[in-house]
């Protein structure tokens, strides 16, 4: 099994061979069942979307403690088949992983090692009206899936099986979901024609309420005391803000093309394209944090940032919940993305290739 050391600074790969052994205090080793390879407990998975129509979505595994990356798709290595076309969301359900693959149109339940245990395809006659799957949220054993037919569907994990429960119509082209306090929040984009977040009771799953936000909302997250929503905005300014779960009021806080939240701090990237010199375009990316508790923005949190970030398009941001390390993923939309790792204090640490196009999200396990 060949791994690559995450590089420091320059992208010059160094091949190293490593065999991992378990170093976890957790005695539950069920996640290793069926795995074709030895893996570290301190795992992280990058979901790369690939390009539409190219069947080149993949999941790349790296050891976030040892800074080792396995440069091949772990899903293919474990299952002998490819992930498919446009993986659009990945999330954790206990020690299991869920992945939604948009154009291939299925949700799969994987072990913590990436071994597929169950799959629900929306391509069958029974589910085809639901449209293509987009995003996921988990609440206990319940999985919520948005799909382009305008629905949020409820699935249930029973052991290693993923079962369909029900669907609710929420509006056209729903995007990401987040769960907070038994409620499911879903951005209803309408591909620019809508400006609402749908709210569903996760247990009752019988009615939909709406909260008006920005135009073309896209990315919903849950923090300790608020729901966050980011979208394109009616003027493509990429606003983001918070929804008070009690008052259902939306307040804009800033602008970001990629963001995430951890411990009530928003980590955001704003990539802006300078159109004035078009067609000799250039993209300028700035990073900042926003403390939701104090309502303060910090433009200097990220330190020693490589120059390359400033002219790249930020695609996603993720935080390792075990260390607080921040991971910024950039893309040029046609070649392998780059992952930049910052320490929890905002100091740049290293960069490594995502080994796939358009790195959408990273999930961390231990």
């Amino acid at each position: 099994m060949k791994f690559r050391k995450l590089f420091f600074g320059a992208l010059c790969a160094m091949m190293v061979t490593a065999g991992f052994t378990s170093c976890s205090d957790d005695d539950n080793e069920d996640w290793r069942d069926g795995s074709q390879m030895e893996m570290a407990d301190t795992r992280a998975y990058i979901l790369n979307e690939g390009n539409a129509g190219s069947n080149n979505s993949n999941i790349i595994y790296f050891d976030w403690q040892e800074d080792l990356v396995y440069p091949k798709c772990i899903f293919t290595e474990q299952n002998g088949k490819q992930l498919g076309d446009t993986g659009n969301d990945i999330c954790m359900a206990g020690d299991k992983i869920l992945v939604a693959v948009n154009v291939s149109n299925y949700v799969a339940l994987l072990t913590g090692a990436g071994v597929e245990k169950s799959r629900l395809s929306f391509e069958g006659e029974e589910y085809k009206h639901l449209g293509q799957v987009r995003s996921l949220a988990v609440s206990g054993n319940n999985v919520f899936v948005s799909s382009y037919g305008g629905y949020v569907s409820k699935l249930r994990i029973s052991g290693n099986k993923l079962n369909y429960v029900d669907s609710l119509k929420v509006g056209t082209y729903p995007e990401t979901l987040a769960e907070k306090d038994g409620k499911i929040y879903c951005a209803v984009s309408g591909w620019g024609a809508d400006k609402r977040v749908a709210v569903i009771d996760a247990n009752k799953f019988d009615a939909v309420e709406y909260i008006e936000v920005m135009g073309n909302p896209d990315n919903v997250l849950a923090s300790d005391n608020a729901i966050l929503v980011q979208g394109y905005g009616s003027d493509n300014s990429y606003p983001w803000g918070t929804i008070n779960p009690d008052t259902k009021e939306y307040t804009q806080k800033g602008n970001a093309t990629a963001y995430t939240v951890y411990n009530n701090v928003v980590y955001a990237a704003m990539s802006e394209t300078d159109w004035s010199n078009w067609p000799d375009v250039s993209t300028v990316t700035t990073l900042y944090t926003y403390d939701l508790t104090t309502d303060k923005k910090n433009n200097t949190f990220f330190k020693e940032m490589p120059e390359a970030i400033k002219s790249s398009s930020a695609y996603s941001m993720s935080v390792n919940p075990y260390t607080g390390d921040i991971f910024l993923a950039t893309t040029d939309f046609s070649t392998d993305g780059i992952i930049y790792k910052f320490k929890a204090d905002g100091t740049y640490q290293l960069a490594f290739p995502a080994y796939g196009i358009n790195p959408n999200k990273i999930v961390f396990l231990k």
Partner: protein
Amino acid sequence: MGNLGRNIKKQRENCRSVLIRAFVAMLSLSYSTAPAAMLLPRCPAAGDTTEVRRMGTASVSGHKTAADVLATKPLQTMERTEIEALGLENVAEAVKRFAGTTVRDYGGVGGMKTVSVRNLGAHHTAVSYDGIVVSNTQAGQIDIGRYLLDNVERLTLSTGHSDNLMQSARHYAAASVLDIESKTPLLTTERNNQLRLTMKTGSFGLANPSLHYDRRLARRTVLSLDAYFMHSDGTYPYSLLNASKRSKEKRYNSEVTSWQGQADLRHAFADGSQMHLKTMWYRSERGLPGTVIFYANPSEERLWDEDFYAQALYSKHFSRQWQLQGRMKYTHTWNRYTDPRYKFRDVNRQNEYYASATAGWQPLENLSFALAQDIAFNDLRNNILRNVEVVPANPRRFTSLTALTAQWRTARVNIQGNLTGTYATEDVHAGKKPDDRRRLSPTVAATWRLLPEQSFFARLMYKNTFRMPTFNDQYYYRMGSTNLKPEKATEYNAGLTWSGSPARWIKYLSLTVDGYYNHVHDKIVAFPTTYVWKMANFGKVEIWGIDVTMATEIPLTRNVSALLTGNFTQQRAKDKTNPKSQTYNNDVPYTPRSHGNLSIILNNPWVNVGYSLCYCGSRYSMGQNKPEYRIRQYTESSLTLSRDFRLGASRLKLAASVVNLENKQYEVVKYYPMPRRSWHLTATFQW
């Protein structure tokens, strides 16, 4: 010279023989009228040794060989006899057998097929049908898979443009030109009527009846009518490789139904001038199978097309010094595209009003000039449904092209220079319009006979050209940009050509070797910037390559002869856009480093045999040349058996073809699997 003199005399005597068609086409290579319009060809002037060489070669082998050898710029031709013998179905199948071409084939009968020459991109290839360039201002690419070969006499692919001075400015402006030339009716017969009925059937539920009728309305006037119908369910099995697992699948949503009607009126005036009027109507409905997506059902995309055009071509020799050729064309195209899965619906309507004239002047024996002026007015109206209301730009474009050409030609040297000026201005119904565009495109080409008694030539070419941004590039919903500059291409070519009969048992042998360097900059690409893709002048591409072609005929017995043609291309097309990019110096997607073709035709009194083999080397589907994006090399061979039966004054021809003899599964475009072994039968009754 004695032999040459006898050849001249013989050619004059046989001026109205079968060979005249070949000879007329040869003249079209230099200072002549358009071959498509030729009804009553003129006898050549004697004394031009080059012409004599052409005739001599043409008389034994068909002019294909001579044309390739004599041209100042690489030229490849395929004659009707070869098309029939190899059982080729459409223009794309024929063109992919030319050296240096890349036909992007999305598979199936209805799949789009475009041709790029020497990797400049399909937008740089002009397609000319019976002397007038086909235009698509919206997409900029011509689907050559639509053109059936039933009534095609000759295909010619010119790198740069052909040496014919009497062509339109659009011909001169293109980086390469594919000429489709239809048959000239009743040329070789004294009859007043001719009827041809053809029925094709084969794999994928193919039903393709066609009718062609020629009638001589007057001594110099011939009317031709054509009607085609084609239906194919397009369904074919294929095997799909998913990592290490291979599954058997079927390609659905590939059916196509098309109808086509065409009328041609050719008239030769008493003063020697000629006119060719042509009108065509085409309608099709097809499924678009799209890319194969793992685990998902087939595409539900559909496309409806309707094309209509009426064109006129007139040519006149005023004197030995002066001649004129005029062209007019009106084109209307309509298409509707739907994708129920995403609730997409596009309706596009285009009109083109086009006029062109070329004046030729030969003040001296060796010196000729031609001035071509084209004007075109194009408009596009579309309705686009993308879930939100889109206000279309409805652009209109006026284009003027002026091409001045000079040629100096002696027995051993032929030098041609051309300067083409383009002016384009646009107007829009809504949104921004681009600035007016003006650009000059020079070409210099020369060929030199290295040995006076040998058909052994050296040739050089330089051409600087460009392609205008299409309406889609500029106005497509969200992606279009009106700030685009034209995409520039520079071509350099140096080659050696030779033709002769090196041994008694070889009737003729011709060889060409051309090395080339092309450079494309300001390439128009979809450029990703912060989630919104925009069309931009971003790419730079460098292309190096060498094309080798060969053609020979070997008589085996008195009645049996073998015709062999082959070509091989070795090339490298590298991305030179951004040294910091992961694609820098990588191969441009879908550019194999090597490809080649071989065909063998065995003519005999019993059953003619045609065999062809295409080879395409491995290439990458993405700009980042990772192993997982490598598409495997493939070879495809086909075999055709055919025989003519005489039924009194009528003729029945039966042909049977097997395509992809080895039953191989391969892809031209990633995740667009090509059909495995297929067959078709053709019965042609001619009265």
